[in-house]
């Protein structure tokens, strides 16, 4: 057998390091998450929601802390050992299982001696994932036709503002929702004109929108809402479980899926629609063609500019829905800068998900979970000795790590970011 090439050799070496890494992770689980525990401590993981009454009250999951941590650590140690000796082909599964074990051990340890609602954190994950998912879908619609859109943040913020303003002005929540979509569409149109017509660098034109959005929302918030506080009254859509009480009573699924704003469901439906449309309809084929090789599409008679305009504006509409979620789907009122960087996290979710809706779902759930975790950990603050500000940093740091880990292994639309020149 011929000697291995240098490249092959370095790849094998990297894999050995990987096995070692997971061994260390397993050891870390064992060491850190058995510290400060008593041997017979238990963690109680609630499977019921406190919000509504359920048909069947499920018993709480009572987990003996130390044995559980041992089991989880053992799983990771075993995987690490196997990887060291005979490396796995697909590293992705390994990362997923190890991450799950680490997180589970962490949760169990953090909840030692007390209880916390497992259902609660999962439900919160979905809630916090929704605006990121919608933002990512909006960005995907734009980027699949090769227009970079970093203005999702600004579109979301502006839409959040107008949704509350219009809903209170007209007394009609649906009009507020429509206003949010219209705001997103208008800002998207502005971005489209700047980047498609005037061929402005797309990151700059996105920044224009973002800065404008911050300025406009703060400006109008102060001018209008602080003077006429009625314009900022709480307006929200009722949760599905409030509209159809029976749905909320189903154990596990009830609190998880139905104790949510209808916008969450809208997001999931949009996800499926966009996924199918992108890969199985004529619009999707043409959009992707324009994003990969606009000149080829042009030679086949497809209007590159029109396709891009439509996609960017559609993306704006979805971003508008995301904005409406912050207000009409959540707290009901507008606060300055309330999107706090979720738009940028949504873009990272899009990259992490390889520019597909399904991928975006996976990554936004991960980010949502990180977000929910940080909220829950603030409650368990006594058990986890980390200042809460560091917990607040968690979603942002997770984003940076995810981005660093995934770049190079994902494939963006080939013409992404390049204005199209017709000759």
């Amino acid at each position, binding site marked *: 057998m011929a000697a291995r*090439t*240098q*490249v*092959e050799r370095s790849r094998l070496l990297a894999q050995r390091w990987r096995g070692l890494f997971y061994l260390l992770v397993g050891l870390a689980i064992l060491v850190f998450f058995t510290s400060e525990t008593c041997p017979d401590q238990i963690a109680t993981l609630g499977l019921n929601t406190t919000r509504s009454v359920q048909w069947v009250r499920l018993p709480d999951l009572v987990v003996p802390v130390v044995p559980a941590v041992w089991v989880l650590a053992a799983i990771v140690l075993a995987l690490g050992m196997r990887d060291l000796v005979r490396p796995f082909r697909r590293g992705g599964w390994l990362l997923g299982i190890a991450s799950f074990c680490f997180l589970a051990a962490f949760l169990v340890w953090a909840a030692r001696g007390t209880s916390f609602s497992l259902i609660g954190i999962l439900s919160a994950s979905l809630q916090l994932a929704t605006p990121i998912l919608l933002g990512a879908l909006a960005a995907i619609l734009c980027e699949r036709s090769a227009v970079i859109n970093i203005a999702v943040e600004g579109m979301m913020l502006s839409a959040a503002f107008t949704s509350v303003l219009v809903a209170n002005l007209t007394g009609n929540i649906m009009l507020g929702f429509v206003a949010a979509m219209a705001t997103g569409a208008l800002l998207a149109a502005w971005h489209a004109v700047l980047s498609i017509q005037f061929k402005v660098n797309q990151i700059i034109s996105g920044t224009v929108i973002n800065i404008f959005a911050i300025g406009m929302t703060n400006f109008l918030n102060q001018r209008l809402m602080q003077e006429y506080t009625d314009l900022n009254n709480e307006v929200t859509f009722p949760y599905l479980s409030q509209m159809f009480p029976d749905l909320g009573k189903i154990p596990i699924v009830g609190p998880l899926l139905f104790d949510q704003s209808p916008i969450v469901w809208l997001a999931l439906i949009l996800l499926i629609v966009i996924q199918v449309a992108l890969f*199985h*309809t*004529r619009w999707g*084929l*043409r959009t*992707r*063609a324009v994003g*990969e*090789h606009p*000149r*080829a*599409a*042009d*030679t*086949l*008679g*497809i209007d590159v500019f029109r396709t891009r305009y439509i996609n960017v504006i559609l993306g704006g509409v979805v971003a508008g829905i995301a904005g409406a979620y912050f207000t009409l789907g959540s707290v009901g009122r507008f606060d300055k800068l309330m999107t706090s960087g979720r738009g940028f996290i949504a873009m990272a979710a899009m990259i992490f998900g390889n520019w597909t809706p399904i991928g975006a779902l996976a990554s936004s759930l991960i980010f949502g979970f990180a977000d929910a975790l940080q909220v829950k950990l603030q409650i368990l603050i006594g058990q986890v000795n980390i200042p809460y500000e560091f917990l607040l940093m968690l979603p942002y740091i997770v984003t940076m790590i995810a981005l660093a880990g995934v770049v190079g292994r994902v*494939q963006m639309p*080939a013409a992404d970011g390049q204005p199209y020149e017709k*000759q």
Partner: protein
Amino acid sequence: MPPILELDGITKRFPGVLANDHIHLTLEQGEIHALLGENGAGKTTLMNILYGLYHPDEGRILVRGKEVKIDTPSQAIRLGIGMVHQHFMLIPVFTVTENVMLGEETLTRGIFLDRAAVAARIRDISAQYGLQVDPDAYIKDLSVGAQQRVEILKILYRRADILILDEPTAVLTPQEVEELFKVIRSLVARGVSIIFISHKLKEVMAIADRITVLRDGRVVGTTRPAETSPAALARMMVGREVILTVDKQPARPGEVVLDVNDLHVLDDRQQTRVSGISFQVRAGEILGIAGVQGNGQTELVEALTGLRPIARGRVTILGNDTTRATPRHVLQSGVAHIPEDRQRDGLVLTFPVADNLVLNMYYLPPFARGIRIDERTVFASATQRVQQFDIRTPSIHTLASSLSGGNQQKVIVAREFTRPIRLLIASQPTRGLDVGSIEYIHQRIVEMRDQGCAVLLVSPELDEILSLADRIVVMYHGKIMDILPASQATPEKLGLLMAGVREG
């Protein structure tokens, strides 16, 4: 019967250049009409007008005897006109089916794509015209020849009967060219009419029924192969006697400058592109690497210049191991690199000429002392070199983007040839240049050789290799097929090697 296509008085102006000047051209039904001219003669512009990508300033187009206006490619397609571009208009991450159906999608249940129906029709057309294509393959996995077949298929799918082929043989081996000619003849037998754009005299003589020569945007003449000769065509193309070979002394090779030993190089997707190549280049000789583009030459040059990591093997320059050297280290070892893509890799178009002339030397004395750049020296050296190499530019502060292709290449040559170099790696140094610039560059390369430099010339143009190289290496699928002295090389022999056919 009227000609199936007639272009009457077509004129097209771009800022600063008259691309097409009252061009008249007819195409008979079932004819193969070649459009011959050198780079920049206006051939592609004319065809883009026919295909609706450009709009003519003057003139009319008649299809099947009726005057038409072609404003978009869709209209051209509807009139039965199809174009296979020089650079393929295929989407690599789509399948053959998806590329073919794009713009003419067959739908099922109203809105969903019907890939199966399209694939079936593709198979029918394949069988009918003898075009071997797998509808479910991804374009990025197909060979260049296969991709070209997909392009032709796209047109036939749309029931075109006027086919425009723009430089279709640029990326084919001589054997693949024969295959293409067979396909063309079979299409013509079924009533398709073809316009064949090329700058290659011999091919045009072989395939065309009629030949129209374009020069500087004007029609110089229309003739038939039987009534003309390659020399006559060349004269029409260029307007003067063309020396088809370079005047050079025999080589006097000295010491070994570049030693490549069992080189293996992978591409970005970890596929092997160079597998086990070994050769040497001596001072005072030109080693030409022939081969159809895409057989590993690009990756070889990148590996030698430090731009791509070497998976296995060794590279030695003047005794120094440069296998793991950085690009800067390679340059400092006395290597000059004329890159394949001059605008992307060789120049910074938004920088002035003076800056471009020191692009890889700005940090060395006398241009810099420590961290400070000595502008006066930079400007003085630039002025001197612009004169020495006859670079046509208003000033050394003009941005490189304002220069013509030939002058841009001269900037790169001026930069590289005035460094203390022992090895010159030139990759497609005359691509897209006019004849005058080509002659100039060829002369300077031979001069370098005569001054004791080792030259590695990589070119897909057989004529260039045959006229310049002292020894010739043929690459195919990342391997060396053979190394022969120029005296033993003929186009036929090289063609076979380029297609992977070893002798004996």
